[in-house]
C-alpha cells in the first residue's frame, strides 16, 4: 500500500509537472516558451540592471497576474545567486479580464514580460557568473497545466566601463516593447478614494479628465466578486466605479489596492483610502431643455428617414394612394393621414416596448436588432417579395391600393394606410439616419415616459410629409389626376421593392450561408405559386385556400429553416463586407483595441452590419478609397471592424458605452485620450481624411523613453 502511494506520487510528480531542465536562459515547454531577458549582460557594480522573465504563449493560453482571480496561480521565480548579487521581485504588468464560464480570472495572453532588476555589489568581484533561476507557472486554456523550468543566465560583473559589449539586441527589443506595460503610480495631483456600499464599494478616481472606460483589478484576493461587471460613471475630472464585493468578505479593507486600467492603455497603481464618494448622477439629470432639443432632433431624424432608400419605396406607394384618394373628401384624406400616422406610432411603440422589455430581462440589444434574427429576415424578404409580385400585376390582394370608394373598401383602405405605416417603420429601422443614433441612445436610458415621448417625436417626423399632404388640400390638387399611368407606376414601384428583396437575400447569404439562401429562394418559389393561384383563379374559395396553405408552408419554412440550415458565424464573414483592402481590417475586440492603443497606435473602429445599407455605402465611398487607406497607413492607424450582423453582446456594450444603440458608428481613438472622436454617420473621404489629419502628431509613445524609467 505504502509502495503503491509512493509510486503514484512519483508518477504524479513527473507526469503532472513537465519539468524543463535547461542549461540555457530559455525553455520551450507545453504551450509556451519561457525566457530570461537581459538587455545587457554586463552588471555594473552598484547599479541595478534591467531584466525580465518573458513568456511567449500559444494562442488561447494564458498565464496569471499576481492576483489570479477566481482560479489560477501567478508565475514564481526562485533564485540561486552568487554572493553579492541580488534580484528584485518581479513586477506584474496590468492584466486583462479572462472570463471563464461564470468565473473570472486575471492574466495575460500571447506574451508577457515581468520586469525586475539585478544588482551586483560587494562582495561580488568582477568576472563572469551564472544566475540560476527556478521558475514555475500555471498555464491554462480550458484546462490547466502547471510547468517548471530551471534557467541559467550568464552575466559579467564589471566595475566601470565594460571591456566587451554584452548587449543583446533581441532582449533589448523585448524589454523596450513590453516593460512599459507596468502600471505607473497615480500622479500626486490625482486622488483615489473608496466608500463601502451595501453590496460592494464605490471607487472614485480623479485623473484630470473625463474617463469613460475603466477596469479595476484588485490586488487583494477575496475582496471583490471578480466576475461581476464594473459600472463606470464618468465625472468631469475622472470616474466613479461601482464594484461588487466578495459575498464572504467580512472586514472592510483599510485600503483598496489594485490596478486601474483606463482607455488608451493607461494603467495606474491605485491605493484608495476610505472616504465619501459623491453619489454619481444616477441618470443624466433630467433637463427640460435637453429633452426639448432631443425631441426636436428626433423629429428631424424622423423627417430625414423619409428620404432613406429603405423607406422611399413605401412613401412612393403612399403618394400613389394619395392620388387615388385625391377624389375623396377632405375629412377622409385627413383620416387616412391619421391612420397612417397611427400605424407608424403603434409600430414604433411596439418596437420600443419590446426593446425596453428585453433590456430589462437582461439581454443587451440595440437598434436594428430585429435584423439579427434570421427568422425576421426570411419573413420580411418573403413579405416584400409577395408584395412585389402583387404590384407587378401577378394578382390583386385585399389591401390593394387601387380599390375605390364604398364604405367596405374605405375600411380596407384604412387598414391599408395603417399597415403602410407599419411597413415604413419596419423597413426604416436599419437606416439609422443622422440624429437617430444619438436620439435613441439618449431615449433608451430615460424613464419609460420620456423614451416614449422621444420615439413619438421620431414617429411623427416619419409621418409628417404624408400628413402635411393630407392636411393641405392645396398641395394635393397639384398632384396628377388618377388614370392608367397609376397602373404603370404601380408596376414600376415593384422594381425598388424587388431591389430591397435582393438586398435582404444578400444579407441572408452573407450572414447565414448558401443553405439558408436555398431555403429562402424556395420560399420565394412557394410564394410565386401562391400568387399564381390567386391571380389565375381570383375570388375562388378553393384557390384562396390553396394559396393560404402555401403561404403557411412558406411561413413555417421561415421559422424552421434558420435552426436547421444557418451556418455558424465565421471569421470570414466578419471581413468580407469590406470590399477592398480586406487585409487591413482586423475583427474588433476590446482587447485588440486596448493593445493597439497601449502600443501607441491610433485606432479606427467601424461598427457595421451587412443589413445596414448606410454602412455598406460608407465603406465603399469613403473607407475603402485608396487615399483614405493610404492616410490610415501613413499614420499607422489600427483598423478594426465590429461586425454586428449577428447579435454580439460585446459590440452592443461597446455601442452603448459610446452612447449609441445602432450602426453605423465610426470611432477614432488616439492613444492616451479616453474619449474617441465619433465621426458622422454619413461619411465622405474628406471627413475621414480631416479626422486622420487632426490626430495629435507623435501620438505613438517613443519606445526609447521607457527604458529610462529605472532609477
Amino acid at each position, binding site marked *: 500500500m505504502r509502495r503503491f502511494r509512493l509510486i503514484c506520487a512519483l508518477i*504524479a510528480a513527473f507526469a503532472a*509537472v513537465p519539468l524543463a531542465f535547461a542549461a540555457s536562459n530559455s525553455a520551450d515547454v507545453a504551450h509556451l516558451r519561457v525566457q530570461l531577458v537581459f538587455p545587457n549582460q554586463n552588471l555594473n557594480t552598484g547599479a541595478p540592471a534591467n531584466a525580465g522573465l518573458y513568456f511567449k504563449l500559444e494562442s488561447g493560453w494564458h498565464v496569471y497576474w499576481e492576483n489570479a482571480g477566481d482560479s489560477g496561480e501567478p508565475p514564481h521565480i526562485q533564485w540561486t545567486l552568487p554572493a553579492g548579487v541580488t534580484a528584485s521581485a518581479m513586477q506584474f504588468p496590468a492584466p486583462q479580464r479572462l472570463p471563464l464560464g461564470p468565473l473570472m480570472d486575471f492574466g495575460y495572453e500571447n506574451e508577457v514580460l515581468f520586469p525586475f532588476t539585478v544588482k551586483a555589489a560587494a562582495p561580488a568581484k568582477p568576472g563572469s557568473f551564472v544566475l540560476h533561476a527556478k521558475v514555475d507557472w500555471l498555464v491554462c486554456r480550458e484546462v490547466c497545466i502547471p510547468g517548471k523550468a530551471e534557467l541559467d543566465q550568464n552575466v559579467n560583473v564589471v566595475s566601470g566601463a565594460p571591456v566587451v559589449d554584452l548587449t543583446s539586441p533581441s532582449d533589448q527589443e523585448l524589454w523596450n516593447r513590453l516593460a512599459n506595460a507596468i502600471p505607473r503610480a497615480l500622479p500626486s495631483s490625482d486622488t483615489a478614494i473608496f466608500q463601502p456600499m451595501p453590496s460592494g464599494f464605490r471607487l472614485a478616481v480623479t485623473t484630470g479628465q473625463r474617463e469613460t472606460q475603466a477596469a479595476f483589478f484588485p490586488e487583494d484576493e477575496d475582496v471583490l466578486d471578480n466576475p461581476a461587471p464594473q459600472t463606470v460613471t464618468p465625472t468631469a475630472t475622472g470616474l466613479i466605479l461601482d464594484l461588487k464585493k466578495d459575498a464572504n468578505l467580512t472586514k472592510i479593507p483599510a485600503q483598496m489596492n489594485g490596478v486601474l486600467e483606463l482607455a488608451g492603455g493607461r494603467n495606474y497603481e491605485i491605493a484608495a483610502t476610505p472616504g465619501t464618494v459623491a453619489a454619481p448622477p444616477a441618470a443624466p439629470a433630467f433637463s427640460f431643455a435637453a429633452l426639448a432639443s*432631443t425631441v426636436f432632433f428626433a423629429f428631424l431624424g424622423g423627417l430625414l428617414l423619409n428620404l432613406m432608400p429603405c423607406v422611399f419605396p413605401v412613401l412612393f406607394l403612399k403618394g400613389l394612394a394619395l392620388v387615388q384618394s385625391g377624389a375623396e373628401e377632405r375629412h377622409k384624406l385627413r383620416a387616412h393621414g391619421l391612420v397612417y400616422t397611427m400605424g407608424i406610432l403603434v409600430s414604433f411603440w411596439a418596437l420600443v416596448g419590446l426593446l425596453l422589455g428585453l433590456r430589462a430581462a437582461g439581454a443587451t440589444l440595440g437598434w436594428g436588432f430585429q435584423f439579427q434574427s434570421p427568422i425576421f429576415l426570411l419573413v420580411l424578404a418573403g413579405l416584400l417579395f409577395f408584395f412585389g409580385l402583387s404590384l407587378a400585376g401577378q394578382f390583386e390582394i385585399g389591401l390593394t391600393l387601387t380599390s375605390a370608394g364604398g364604405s367596405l373598401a374605405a375600411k380596407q383602405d384604412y387598414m391599408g394606410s395603417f399597415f403602410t405605416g407599419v411597413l415604413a417603420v419596419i423597413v426604416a429601422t436599419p437606416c439609422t439616419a443622422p440624429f437617430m443614433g444619438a436620439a435613441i441612445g439618449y431615449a433608451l436610458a430615460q424613464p419609460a415616459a420620456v423614451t416614449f415621448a422621444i420615439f413619438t417625436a421620431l414617429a411623427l417626423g416619419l409621418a409628417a410629409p404624408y400628413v402635411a399632404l393630407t392636411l393641405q388640400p392645396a398641395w394635393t390638387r397639384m398632384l396628377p389626376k388618377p388614370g392608367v399611368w397609376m397602373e404603370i407606376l404601380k408596376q414600376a414601384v415593384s422594381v425598388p421593392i424587388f431591389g430591397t428583396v435582393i438586398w435582404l437575400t444578400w444579407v441572408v447569404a452573407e450572414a447565414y450561408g448558401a443553405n439558408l439562401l436555398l431555403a429562402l429562394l424556395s420560399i420565394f418559389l412557394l410564394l410565386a405559386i401562391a400568387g399564381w393561384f390567386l391571380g389565375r383563379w381570383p375570388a375562388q374559395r378553393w384557390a384562396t385556400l390553396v394559396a393560404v396553405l402555401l403561404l403557411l408552408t412558406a411561413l413555417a419554412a421561415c421559422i424552421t429553416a434558420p435552426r436547421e440550415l444557418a451556418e455558424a458565424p465565421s471569421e470570414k464573414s466578419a471581413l468580407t463586407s469590406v470590399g477592398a483592402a480586406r487585409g487591413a481590417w482586423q475583427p474588433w475586440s476590446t482587447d485588440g483595441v486596448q493593445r493597439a492603443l497601449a502600443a501607441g497606435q491610433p485606432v479606427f473602429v467601424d461598427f457595421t452590419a451587412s443589413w445596414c445599407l448606410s454602412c455598406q455605402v460608407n465603406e465603399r465611398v469613403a473607407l475603402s478609397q485608396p487615399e483614405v487607406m493610404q492616410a490610415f497607413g501613413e499614420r499607422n492607424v489600427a483598423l478594426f471592424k465590429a461586425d454586428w450582423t449577428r447579435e454580439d453582446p460585446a459590440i452592443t456594450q461597446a455601442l452603448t458605452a459610446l452612447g449609441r444603440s445602432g450602426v453605423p458608428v465610426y470611432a477614432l481613438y488616439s492613444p492616451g485620450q479616453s474619449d474617441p472622436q465619433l465621426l458622422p454617420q454619413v461619411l465622405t473621404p474628406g471627413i475621414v481624411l480631416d479626422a486622420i489629419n487632426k490626430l495629435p502628431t507623435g501620438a505613438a509613445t517613443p519606445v526609447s523613453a521607457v527604458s529610462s524609467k529605472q532609477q
Partner: protein
Amino acid sequence: MKSLSCLAGVAALAVALVPVAAGAQAVVGSPAPAFTATDSHGQTHSLTEYRGKYVVLEWHNHDCPYTKKHYASGNMQSLQKEWTTKGVVWFTVISSAPGQQGYVTDSEENAYLDQMHAVPTAVLMDPEGKLGHLFSAKTTPEMYVIDPEGKLIYEGAIDDHATPDVSDIKGADNYLNDALMESMSGKPVAHAYTRSYGCSVKYAN
C-alpha cells in the same frame, strides 16, 4: 448633447447589468443553502438529512493537476478515511459539464473510486453545475465544511501550499483539518474563508 447621450448610454448599461436576483447563496457563517443531489450510485442525498453531522464538500476533477496532487499522494483518501470514521459525511462533488475536463459517468467515477481507494460517503454528480453555482465553487480542489446546525463554517483551499507538487503536502497547514478540529472542540474557526487554489471548475460555458 454628445456628453448627455454618452452619460445616458452609461446609465443604460448600468440598468442592463443589474444582476438578476440570485437565490440563497453560500456565505461563511450563515446557514448553508439547502440542496438535493444524486450520487454516482443513483441515490439522492439532501443536506437536511444530515443535520446533526458535519458535512464536508470536496470539489473534484480527476484530471486537474492540483486534484491529482492530493489523490496520487493518497492525501485526500486518508483525509476521507480519517474524517468519515469520525462520523463526518464527506461528499465529493463533480461539477464538470459534459465534454469538459473531469466529466465522468457514474460507472467511470465508481471505477475511479475503486482504483484510487477513495472513500467519500458519496460522490455527487453535478454535470449541470447546480451545486457548484449554489456554493460558488471556483476551483478543484475546493473544500466546504458545514457544521451540525447546518451552518457553513469553512470555504476555501484544502491547505496553504498552492502548488501542484506532491512534495508540498508535507508541512502544509491543512485548513480542512483545522476547521473540523477547531469546530469540534468548540472553538471558532480561525481561517474560515481562504482563497481556494487549483484549476477552475469546468462549468458549461
